């Protein structure tokens, strides 16, 4: 269960969301898209087009100076980890790299979109039907979404209930802007929401559904709007992976020379620890993202070298401050005029 905290204007989290779905289409997984904001048909029309291997190779050659390829591999590994039941083998494919790359400036062709089976849930169309399951004091929007997911899972046999089905597939579920007022939940509006348990109950049941079926789910939540921090803590405990996107738009960091190459930061709050005592932790936890014309990339945060002698006191303190944030291993860190190496 991948939980994404949206950035303030929702631009970049939307992009991540679309990447998740596009990856599903390219891998041949089934999709389930739920939203209360946009009609899922519209979401699907706007997925980025996949880059074919050969064209990407050329692009990479052009930009080789700027991006190291192992950085790329690393960032894909962190950002695209998703959860499946351990007993399942994914379809036998021979991808040399993990995941695919996408061209943000082009839309995915409709034929490719239609090649997989997809289900949609648009809240305002579904509200008319009564949920048949026991709602147990949950918000009715969430309850009907859960029921819809459960119905798809059992009908399409993702939970292994149909022994006839030889070809097992994975269901990718994407839920947009959960917890926002559009879902009928006031957790984003007030400090003491009327029903503070709806969101957490929803997540728990969703987690149960995901664990017992071959599915993976990404949820985006406007976390900056949720004022009750207790709920955010509980939600973090209930998710496998929590990623926060902080964009620099409109914040003071936009003009900070440290961050001039990037559009925002990626905070990895929690990594899944499934089926093992350890979790796969990378060397560094400081990631930043940038959106170029064609590519959305997530990279390790590199501080530019502090070469000037006449650097003013304020920015030097800034440098030291953010160097403290960058904690990588137990190695010593050279703070000050030296170039910071990772």
């Amino acid at each position: 269960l991948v939980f994404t905290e949206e950035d303030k204007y929702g631009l970049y989290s939307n992009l991540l969301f679309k990447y998740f779905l596009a990856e599903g289409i390219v891998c041949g997984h089934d999709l389930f898209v739920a939203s209360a904001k946009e009609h899922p048909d519209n979401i699907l029309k706007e997925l980025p087009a996949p880059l074919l291997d050969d064209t990407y190779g050329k692009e990479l050659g052009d930009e080789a100076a700027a991006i190291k390829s192992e950085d790329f591999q690393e960032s894909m590994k962190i950002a695209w980890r998703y959860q499946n039941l351990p007993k399942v083998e994914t379809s036998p494919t021979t991808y040399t790299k993990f995941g695919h790359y996408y061209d943000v400036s082009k839309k995915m062709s409709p034929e490719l979109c239609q090649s997989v089976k997809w289900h949609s849930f648009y809240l305002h169309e579904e509200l008319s039907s009564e949920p048949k399951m026991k709602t147990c004091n949950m918000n009715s929007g969430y309850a009907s979404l859960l029921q819809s997911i459960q119905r798809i899972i059992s009908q399409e046999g993702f939970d292994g209930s149909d022994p006839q089905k030889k070809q097992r597939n994975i269901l990718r579920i994407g839920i947009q802007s959960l917890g926002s007022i559009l879902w009928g939940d006031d957790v984003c509006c007030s400090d003491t929401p009327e029903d503070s348990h709806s969101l957490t109950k929803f997540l728990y049941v969703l987690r149960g559904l995901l664990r017992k079926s071959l599915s993976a789910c990404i949820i985006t939540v406007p976390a900056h709007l949720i004022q009750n921090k207790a709920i955010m803590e509980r939600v973090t405990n209930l998710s496998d992976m929590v990623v926060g996107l902080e964009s620099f738009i409109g914040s003071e960091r936009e003009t900070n020379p440290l961050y001039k190459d990037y559009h925002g930061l990626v905070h990895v709050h929690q990594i899944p620890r499934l089926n093992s005592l350890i979790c796969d932790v990378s060397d560094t936890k400081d990631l930043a993202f940038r959106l170029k014309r064609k590519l959305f990339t997530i990279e390790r945060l590199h501080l530019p070298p502090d070469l000037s002698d006449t650097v003013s006191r304020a920015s030097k303190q800034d440098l030291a401050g953010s160097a403290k944030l960058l904690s990588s291993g137990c190695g010593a860190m050279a703070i000050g005029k030296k170039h910071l190496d990772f």
Partner: protein
Amino acid sequence: QGKLTLLRDTRTDGSFLVHHFLSFYLRAGCKVCFVALLQSFSHYNIVAQKLGVNLAAAKERGQLVFLEGLKSCLDLLFGDEEQLGQPSPLQFLSGSTSDLRALFDFVRVSLTPADGDSWKGPVLLVDDLSVLLSLGAAPVAVLDFMHYCRMCVCCQLKGNVVVLVHSNEDSEDEENELVVNSLCHHSDLILWAEGLATGFCKDVHGLIKIIKRLSLRQAEQDQVQVYQYKIQDRNVTFFARGLSAAVL
């Protein structure tokens, strides 16, 4: 015998302690009732195999009673009443009752020794208690549940209870803090796993504080021991602060 052990984690994941206690008690031949609210059975099974214990076999021979919270919850919401037979232990979810009596009854029935049982003392293991609050149980109901379990398992059946809770410094989750603080006062032993205050480190995963209550009645100082630890694939290594293998 008859002890309440509290596992507490802050800024990190303390579930390795749960895995440890699970395999420890099973290997010791105790009858274990495991209320697993957060993960699926296969997750625990796979980790337990790495630690040398087979959960499925333990379940077969009646040594382990496993309540898979996620599955129970789904059965309650999406299943038919007739299929279940008996009331679900997570009855409080459906809103009909606000206390955790059904869960306690489940625990009591599982751990009461049946004829022909040759297991050593019963053990109740809960992972984790904070989830009950997220699901809508009131903190008082959770504390009542723990109280009843302690009376039944620790006092009557002379067994042990091990419970995992999450807590955070400057947490705004007051209900959770209430439950955690109350349990701290009632525990005989507290194992507190904390993430390092200075941030993330590859070689030292965290700090563990072992707080032993010497006596609940007298105002003696609790015994506190502090170690750092690193989690590996099959075990966890503990060492004194600052003496990680990476440094020496």
